[in-house]
Every structure is written in C-alpha cells, then in structure tokens.
C-alpha cells in the first residue's frame, strides 16, 4: 500500500472507527491502482453524507457537490470531458431518496460512469433516520413506530430500466469489492454498484455479522447468466437469509455520448469553437 498512487491516508477521516466506509475507501484505491490509472485522470463526484466524504480522503479530482445531485453533476462532467474516468459516489439516502429521480434517469441515459452507493440502510450523517433502504419495521428517530413502507430495491429498478451493469458488493469482502469496481469501470456505460456498508453507530440491525452471514457471490455459480434479464430481476429480490452479491445483470447499450454528434470529435473540452458554422448561422438572420 505504501507506494500506491491512490493513498487513502492523506487526511484524517470524519468516520467512526470500524465503519464500513473504510473498506470501500481501501477497495476503491486498490481497484484504481490495479488498473494503472493516474489520480489526475480520475474524477469523483460525490454528494453529501458520511459516504460522500470518501473522495476527500484519497488522491483524485473531486467535485463534492450537493446532497442527491451526484448523478447529473457527474453526467455533465463526463459529457464535457470524456477522457476522465468518472465516478459518482454517495450514500443510499443521497442516491435513492434525494436523488431518486436522477437515479431513474441516469439508468436510462447510460452515461459512461461508475456509481458507487455506500448502502448502510440509514441516514448516517444526520444521525440514523430511516433511508429508502431501511427494512420495514426499523425504528429510527423519524420512524418511532417503525418504517411503514417497502424498502427501495435499486437493483430491481436498474434491471427494469435495462441499465448496463448492475452489481452489489459488500464492504466486508474486499476482494469481491475490488473486482466489482474494476468490472464497473471497464464496462462501457452506466455501472451501478450498490455496496452493503455497515453503519456501526446507527444501524444495529444490518451489522457486519448480519451481512457476512447472509451474503454469497452469485457469480460463483457458473450456470448464472448475467445477460438473462428476467432471471437477474428475480434474483434481485432475494433478501432474507441469503443475500446475493456480484454482477446481477450486464448488457451493452449505446452510451449517452453516442447520442451527441459533437462528441464524435473527442472530448468536448478539447474542441475549438465552430467559428465558421456559427458565422453562417448568424448570417441566416440577415434580411435580404
């Protein structure tokens, strides 16, 4: 770890000792190092929350934006500079509550970015309130009678919208997480990686032990076909004694960049102003 280009010890973190976020930070660093990337080629667009602080603790370009707005911001950055490897990163509240509409449309748009969701099933930073990922019945500061509604299923939603790369991993399974992040980066198009991340302070139900005893790698079963959308969708509902991790679904679809003719000439930020075309266009206002 000492000579990595992506050191994770640059700053003192604001996380509780033992938090699941540390595992994710380390795995991201190793995944990038493993792919031979340079920090200046990588951009992390993160939101607001405990999870969203992660990019500040590692080398890389960072745009630490608003709560819930990582996806449109990352989309704009990627469309402007396709040469950057772009991540969106944040918590489950950030992505699935405040940013829920953006999440739906990012799945449709298929912009070529990797979305890392630290899924601790609560709002950490605001001290433990229910998130869309909290299971029914969970008692929190804002749900003293217990969460009344169904948990949001990001994987099923992503598969329904035919997202290109839909995966789940676990912050307590470093090897799996590194492998999944690298596959997400290499996938051309939008990659969703929902990462089970124990919040040891505010979530006393979904603990390291709870996840560890339930998770299994679905890709170890060679008969599992991640291109079978229906099977993937069905599997995405498995959430009881057994919780699958791995790549649920994978499909190649045209990316958002391909919808924009301007991007055929390469990264937008490197292109000159189309002076001749603009001159012609303006002359079109002339009255004969």
């Amino acid at each position, binding site marked *: 770890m000492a000579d990595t280009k992506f050191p994770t010890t640059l700053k003192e973190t*604001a996380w509780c000792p033992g938090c699941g976020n540390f595992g994710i930070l380390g795995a991201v660093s190793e995944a990038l190092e493993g792919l031979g990337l340079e920090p*200046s080629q990588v951009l992390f*667009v993160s939101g607001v929350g405990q999870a969203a*602080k992660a990019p500040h603790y590692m080398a890389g370009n960072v745009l630490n934006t*608003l709560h819930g707005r990582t996806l449109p911001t990352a*989309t*704009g950055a990627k*469309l402007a500079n396709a040469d950057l490897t772009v991540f969106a990163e944040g918590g489950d509240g950030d992505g699935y509550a405040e940013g829920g509409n953006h999440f739906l449309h990012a799945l449709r748009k298929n912009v070529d970015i990797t979305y890392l969701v630290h899924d601790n099933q609560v709002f950490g930073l605001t001290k433990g309130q229910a998130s869309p990922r909290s299971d029914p019945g969970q008692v929190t500061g804002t749900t003293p009678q217990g969460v009344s509604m169904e948990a949001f299923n990001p994987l099923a939603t992503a598969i329904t919208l035919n997202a290109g790369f839909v995966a789940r991993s676990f912050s307590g399974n470093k090897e799996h997480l590194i492998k999944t992040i690298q596959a997400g980066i290499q996938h051309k198009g939008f990659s969703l990686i929902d990462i089970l991340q124990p919040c040891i302070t505010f979530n006393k139900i979904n603990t390291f032990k709870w996840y560890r005893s339930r998770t299994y790698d679905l890709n170890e079963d060679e008969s599992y076909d991640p291109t079978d959308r229906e099977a993937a969708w069905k599997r995405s509902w498995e959430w009881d004694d057994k919780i699958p991790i791995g790549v649920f679904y994978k499909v190649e679809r045209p990316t958002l960049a391909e919808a924009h003719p301007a991007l055929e000439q390469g990264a937008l930020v490197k292109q000159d102003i*189309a002076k001749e075309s603009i001159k012609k266009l303006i002359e079109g*206002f002339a009255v004969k």
Partner: protein
Amino acid sequence: MKTFSIRIGGEAGQGLVSVGNILLQAITEEGWYLFSHRDYESRIRGGHNFTQFRLSTEPVHTWEQKIDVLVALDKVTVDQHRQDLKENGVVIYSPEIQGKTIDEPNFVAVPFIQVAEDLEQPKVMANAVAAGAIWALLDDDLGVLHTIFAAMFSSKGDDIVEGNKKVSQAGYDLVREALDEREKPTKPEQVAERFLIAGNPALASGALAAGVKFMSAYPMTPSTGVTEFIAGHAKECAVVMEQAEDEISAMNMVVGAAYAGVRAMTATSGGGFALMTEAMGFAAAAEISVVVIDAQRPGPSTGLPTRTEQGDLLYGFGMSSGDFPRAILAPGDPVEAFYLMGHAFNLADKYQMPVVVMSDQHLADSYETVEPFDLDKVVIDRGELVSGEEAGADYKRFALTESGISPRLLPGNGPGLTVAAGDEHDEAGHLVESAEERLAMMEKRMAKMKLVEEEALAPVVFGDDDPELVLIAWGSTKGALRETVGILQEQGKKVKGVHINQVFPFSKELEPILNGPGTKYVVESNYSGQLQKLLGMEFAWKPDGSVRRYDGRPLGPDYILERLEGGMQRG
C-alpha cells in the same frame, strides 16, 4: 415617427402563425423596419391569440396599443380589439366567421375560406387570402408575396404555388374594391443590411458565439426557444444540448460540465429557476462558472405561462442561500441579448461565479429589425486558467489571492488535482470547520465582488442631459422607454431615459443620475416595484413615482404615457 400597426387575432392552430410568417417575411423583404410581438394563450388549439406587426421606415423598438388594421380570424377579435383602432383604421373580417356582415365604415368583408373554395383551392389557403387582403393596405402589387409563396411551397409543386398566388390576389382585390384611395404607409427607399430576430434566438446565438459548449435544460415557456435553438444547431456548432429530467438535474449537469472546463449554460423560467437555485449556490461555493437564462413570465407559481412580467428580479437577486458573488444582466433588445450573453460568460469565467441573464416573454418572442451582429465584437475571456505544468503537483484550487480569484486548473491536466466542494473548504478544496479557515475562504470569495462591481455595465441613457423628468427602466422595457422619451421630447419636455442592463451589481454611474436633476420615475413590469426596491437598497434612494404593469401584457409607450399623465402611484 410614423408607424403602421397591424393586429391579427385568431384561435391557436387556426393559421394565425402562417399568416404571421408570411407577413413577417414580406414586410422585411420590402425593407420596412419591424417590431412584432405575440400575445397568446397557454394552449395548442383554440383560445384567443394575436400577433401584431408594427412597421416604419425608421427603426421601431416597441409596440403601440393603437392599430391601423385589425384582421379577425376568429369571432371575438372584432369586439375585443376594435377600441384600439386608430381613427380611420380598417377591420378585415370574414362574414362566415362573424356569422353576419358588419355594415360600418372601414369594415371590409373577406370570406377567407369561401374565397379559396370559390377558386377551387383547399381551405388552408384561407391564410393566403388573408395575407393578400392585408397586403392591399401596404403595397400596390403582390410581387413580394408571390416570391414568398414560391419559396415556401415550391417543394409541394407548382399547383400549390399558383393556387396561393391566385387566392391572395382575390383577397387583395376585395380590399382594393372596398377601399380604393387609401393612403398607404411610406415605403422605405434605401435599405441597409439588417437582421430580423427575436430575443430567444439572439440569446442562443450570442451564447454560441461566446463559445458555449454545453447546455442542459428542461422545457419551460418562454425559455424553450433558446433550448431548441441550441439543440437544433448542436451538431454543426459542436455543442452538447442534453434535455434533463428536471431543472435540478439541468443545473447540476451544467455545474459538472463547467467544472470540467467548458462554457455551460441553462435556460428556464420562474418555477424552473426556483429548482435551480440550490445548485447555483453550489456553483458559487465551489467557484464554478455557470450562466443561467431566466425568461420571466408572470408568477407566482406557473402564473400566466405565455405572458410577460419582470417579477423575478428580487428572487434572482437572492438566487440561493448564503452570501456569494453574483451578477445579473438584463438585455433590453435582441442586440443586447446577443452581446450580453458573451459578457455573461466572461463574467462567469473571470469571477468563477453564477451569472443570470434575465429575459422575459416580451423580449424572448418579439421580433425586431436590428443592425447586423458583428462576431468580431464578441471577445472571449476565460479568466485565469493555469496549465498542468504551471499548477504543479501541489496545486490548490482555492489558493488565497489578493484579488480573490484562484487560478483554475481544469481536471485531467494534472499532476495537480482539482478538488472542489460546496461545504466550506481549505485552499486545496478539502472540508474544514475552523472559524479561521471559514473567514479566509468567505473573504476570498467576496473579494471578487469588488471587481465585479468595478466592471458593472453603465446604464444606457437617452434624452436630455438636464432633465425635468427621468424615467428609469430595466430589461425588455428598453424599447418602450426609448419611445416614450422621444414622444415627450417632441412635446417639448426635457426628459431622460435610463435603461439598466446590469441589475446587479449596479454601475456606480447610476448614483449621480439618481441624485441628479429631474423628477424620477421607475418603470417596470411587476406589482411591487422590484427594481425600485433594489435601487433603494443599494443607493438608499427613493424615486418620486413609479409606473408598473402586472397584467401580463408588455409595457408600451401608450401605457407609460397614460400613467404619467394620470398622476402616478407614489414610489
């Protein structure tokens, strides 16, 4: 100035637009100066709408309430608008639509559809009948209409072109027979090169000329014209226009693209602007250069979707939570719209802050004959940028400087890293909480405001230097203001008109005007006098009176003069 105004009223989807387009072209091809505005309802079919054309041999910058010709394509036009006819004004109507003939002087019956059908042409050619009838009041032959029909319909075949010519001749003849010896508006002699353009395409082309590379927006009247214009030219101009799922997304995409280094913008109207404000505050905190067009319409809420007002000024001024540098520009006509877009991008880039360009429906949709735009006058200043080499490995995005401007390294040009955050941060962009660091960063950001203030655009001033009356206006009211000043001067009054095209921060040059000679009136399109309030706040100043309009219709000289005469609301 002698002007001639034609108002055509009708239902949406009824050919109003086609007749309007034919006239717009014909009038400009004949060399007249034109100001044309629309008044329409928020629906695709039906309702009552009108388009007005005001032409002259001299430049015209606004509309007039009184009209020379009223053309009724629906039943309600005659009753709703006849009170606006000038003395001896003409009404062209169709007995088949009206359900009766109107036996009054200067009412000319032209059964638009029947004329077309009698000549064995399809009903849609009623539009050409109407165009021919109107043209009889403007010109002695139909040559220019024929040329336009040929250009419009040649792809549909000679029959269609000939049919249009024939029916327009019939419309023309009916009017000529009824009103033979009428005086027609003077025809222009020498025609200088000029543009015919509305505010929306002027803003959009101004942005393109300034090098905008990225736009994201969510459609909302009356801003959509900008969005569709950029989308329509994105390919040849090498621009990305991405329709967002909502305005929150649009603004955040723009932020992301601007951070990555391209000139980026969005366009919206009141409610959409409201959704963007959080991200505008983020842009301010993270010192990201963004440009937002707010095409105002009457609020609150969705208000009157297709009409005009200047009611967002104080909201736009507030813009987002907290204190931060900002600028608001308010072009008054298509020429200013074109050049001020470039200025908006320069301000945004130089001071790394959000800049709002406030338009409104009246500016957005009104066509005006203007001097040609000069691309050589568009200067692009991207502000302080550093290369990867200059920045070095220890680059700090928010380095404390005397000016408050921290040179930008665009991400991807490392070894240096560009770290930016909306939470308070240190020079390197990482999150901090200490009071000292907060003070340093806040003061660094706000220091930029001094430079923004120094660069504020001086007001555009017309009229007398030593006035007894001073009229102060902003944004799209410019044309009405200029004409009002001209009319009062002709009446022997000493009047000055002051048009403010940068409404925040104000130019220091306003101070001696506000405190100088003359009775001062603030003229604006909103209920509460928002410009007046802002001027009061910035200059501890109060006018002597005000003229305000908030019925969703544009200010014009008639309205302003009437209020000035009738004793005004006090300021």
